[in-house]
């Protein structure tokens, strides 16, 4: 069965401090992991996917199959990073993409 766990419901970080949003998954096949961001009252937007191995808006995420994790990191938080962040898991072609419960990131001035 597919499962995505985001243990933190709310994360408050001071501007300029490092950010780490945790995501753990459970999947029997070869996983595809994504991070989506939702700014206030807007649509969900793709932030990162693990196959791209890119950095978007200063965020990075590395898939760790040993720890079944895909944590999202940014070295220096900015106020505009305040948003809901969702970790998502897909996999085989016939499997759905499911989402974690989301973490609200609040950047303090």
């Amino acid at each position: 069965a597919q499962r995505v766990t985001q243990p933190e419901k709310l994360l408050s970080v001071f501007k300029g401090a490092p950010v780490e949003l945790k995501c753990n998954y459970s999947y029997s096949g070869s996983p595809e992991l994504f991070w989506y961001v939702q700014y206030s009252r807007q649509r969900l937007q793709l932030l990162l996917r693990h196959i791209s191995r890119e950095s978007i808006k200063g965020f990075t995420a590395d898939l760790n199959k040993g720890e079944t994790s895909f944590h999202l990191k940014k070295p220096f938080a900015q106020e505009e990073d305040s948003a809901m962040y969702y970790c998502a898991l897909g996999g085989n072609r016939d499997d759905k993409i499911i989402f974690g419960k989301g973490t609200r990131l609040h950047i303090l001035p």
Partner: protein
Amino acid sequence: DTAVSQTPKYLVTQMGNDKSIKCEQNLGHDTMYWYKQDSKKFLKIMFSYNNKELIINETVPNRFSPKSPDKAHLNLHINSLELGDSAVYFCASSQRDRGQPLHFGNGTRLTVT
């Protein structure tokens, strides 16, 4: 051009009514989805259609009926609306291949009074 567009943006209606939400994508994707985001911001998949064929149907009450006239459209019809149906409904599309991300619409905020 908006890639995934859904209408209406807001929908306020009374219990017992029937309503529809429309979704269209111009990305050429072969798969479309409906997700429900509840008041706690939990995002849960409801349905998925691939080339007009239903491929995912989560345990959603049969008051919810998706319809896909072609692969660019996926509408959601809801009968006998209940208070618990109040949520934001997101349409999304993707190519049904490994690693392809979802592209979301702006959402429809449904309020049932």
